């Protein structure tokens, strides 16, 4: 089950026993873990492309957990971060959430709580990665359209009929019909609804 494509959980804690025990516990639900004792090494080396989540101890020598969280968010790391702390104050919790933590848990942490939080975080990360990938593919297909096809697409999204588009562009309805067929093929859409759902945003964004 834990193949190379299964999500990877990064565990950062200066305490070896804590790292290993948590890795063991997380491993029991089939998630891969990579443990880091040194926050700086983690920041320098970890695989930013992997799917998964990051578990961070707040209290660490060198870079503190909150500072590391700030650094990750600043670098645009998209893996959700779960903070762990021995004695969390309300203030610390507030700061962590404000800095972009996905979850804030107190040590010692119960397995159900931690695993549930991790699974939810991984799910969210997978969703967000898929969404960005879909966006990327759509953008690439959109780039293939000719100038005229983009104009036609804009009118389609705006809700105009073929005849109206032909009148607006001073073309024959038949030519519009051809453009329409071409752009449906290029954008890999089977229906008007699908086309609008996927590309309305892009059309509006590019104007």
């Amino acid at each position, binding site marked *: 089950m834990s193949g190379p494509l299964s999500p990877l959980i990064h565990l950062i804690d200066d*305490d070896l026993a804590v790292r290993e025990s948590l890795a*063991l*516990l997380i491993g029991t639900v089939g998630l891969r873990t990579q443990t880091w004792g040194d926050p700086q090494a983690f920041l320098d080396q970890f695989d930013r492309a992997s799917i998964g989540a990051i578990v961070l101890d707040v209290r660490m020598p060198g870079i503190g957990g909150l500072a590391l969280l700030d650094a990750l968010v600043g670098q645009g790391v998209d893996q959700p971060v779960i903070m762990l702390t021995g004695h969390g104050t309300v203030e610390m919790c507030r700061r962590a959430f404000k800095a972009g933590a996905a979850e804030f848990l107190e*040590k010692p*942490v119960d*397995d159900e709580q931690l695993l549930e939080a991790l699974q939810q975080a991984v799910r969210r990360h997978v969703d967000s990665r898929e969404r960005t990938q879909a966006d990327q593919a759509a953008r690439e297909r959109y780039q293939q359209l000719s100038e005229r096809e983009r104009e036609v697409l804009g009118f389609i999204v705006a809700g105009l009929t073929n005849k109206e588009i032909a009148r607006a562009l001073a073309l024959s309805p038949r030519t519009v019909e051809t453009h329409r067929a071409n752009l449906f093929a290029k954008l890999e859409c089977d229906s008007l609804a699908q086309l609008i759902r996927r590309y309305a945003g892009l059309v509006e964004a590019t104007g």
Partner: protein
Amino acid sequence: MRQWLRTQGGWWLAWLLVSGAGAVWLARGELRQLREDFEVNGRIAHRLMSQQVVQYDAVLATLALLEPAPGAARSERRLPSVYPSILDVERREAGGSWPDPSLAPAEARSRQLQRPEFVADDFASGRYRLVIGALPISYALAIDLATAVPWRDWPMDPKTSPVRVTLEYAGQRFVVQPGAAAAEGGWHFDFRKVLASDSQAFELVAEQRVPWTGLPWTAMAAWSLAMAAALGGAYALRRQRIARRRAEELLRLGQVARLNALGELAAGMAHELNQPLTAVLANTQAAQRLLAEEPPELATARSAMKQAAEQARRAADVVGRLRRVIERPDRQAELRPVALQEVLRSALHLLAPEMARRTVTPSIDDATAAPVWVLAEPVALEQIVHNLLMNALQALEEVPAGERRLQLSIGMQAGRGLLAVSDNGAGLSPEALPRVFEPFFSTREGGLGLGLSLSETLASGMGGALEAAHAEPRGARFTLRLPLAGTSAQEMHR
């Protein structure tokens, strides 16, 4: 120097101003008094001298009116024996001539002015003559001013008075009273008035010099000293109050610092314990999951349990280390006899502001008049009493201000000294009562729950005991029992 200026400069300046203003006021009052006296004396002297010279006018006028029979005995010759200041009487009968021809022009003027006329022979030594031109006989009186002064009624003592009195006429001066030698500087009083007689219009001049030494230096110095004493007292009082406030502040800061240190200790301890506990929990829960798998992953589960056991031991080590840090084996040696009354008094003194703020007046029930000497470590005992009192005060916060009761009693029972603190606060619930001495147990919102626990530990460390009970009709009662100094000394002997 700058420090001195800042702390005391203002006080010295205030003293200078106050004593300076007071001295000026005193000196002015004294000078005004002296001037008043001087002027009164001057007026009296003027009146007396005026009366005196007017008398001579009257005598001459009387003589002129007598018209004695020619050849009759010259009764005027008896005048010098009646008036010592009249040295001699001369006469000139109509057609006759004066023994002293210099009197003639005066007589002529007298006739013209219709009043006696004056001849200044030797005015500086007080001698002059007074002439009246009359018919049939003109008279002249030789007068000695020195004997004319009515010393009996004189307002000043001519020998000691500092006032110089003179009579002046046409640049000549007769000294009535020499006064004090006129020194330079100081103040000068001056009184001038012409005598109330047309014939003898001498000017009476009174002068007085008040030298610097005439100021009321004693009173001024006394005032200055009194001010110094008053300001010194105020300064000392202020210093004392500041010192007291500083001491209170230090005490409060000490408490805050202790709390901070305690918070730091708790945070460090939480981290030190949480790490192994996290590992224990994660390992055991991982093992549970591994054992639940089909087939169970026995080897990994076993290793996880071994890890868990190791981490549990690590947690135990942390606790052991902490205990060694907190416990001080050398405490026992410092026990010495302490009077419970003394400890209570000093704790109440420290808490006096707290009591006042909460309007709590403790009532002390001291069954034994004599001091109860117990064997204790003074600082620890003070800490216990302080904690018990603070505890009671906090419990009393729930009670309306007028009904707060804090009952303190000291006594002896079964060879032990006994100090009880009772309040009529909310008291302890049956669930709370057995737990009051547990660390971190508190019924108070935000309470650390260490005060009573620490007190109990300290009390048993000194061979005593701390007990909690319900008070009647409501509230809590804490009783501290400690071995009496006497009995324990006997035990040591045996």
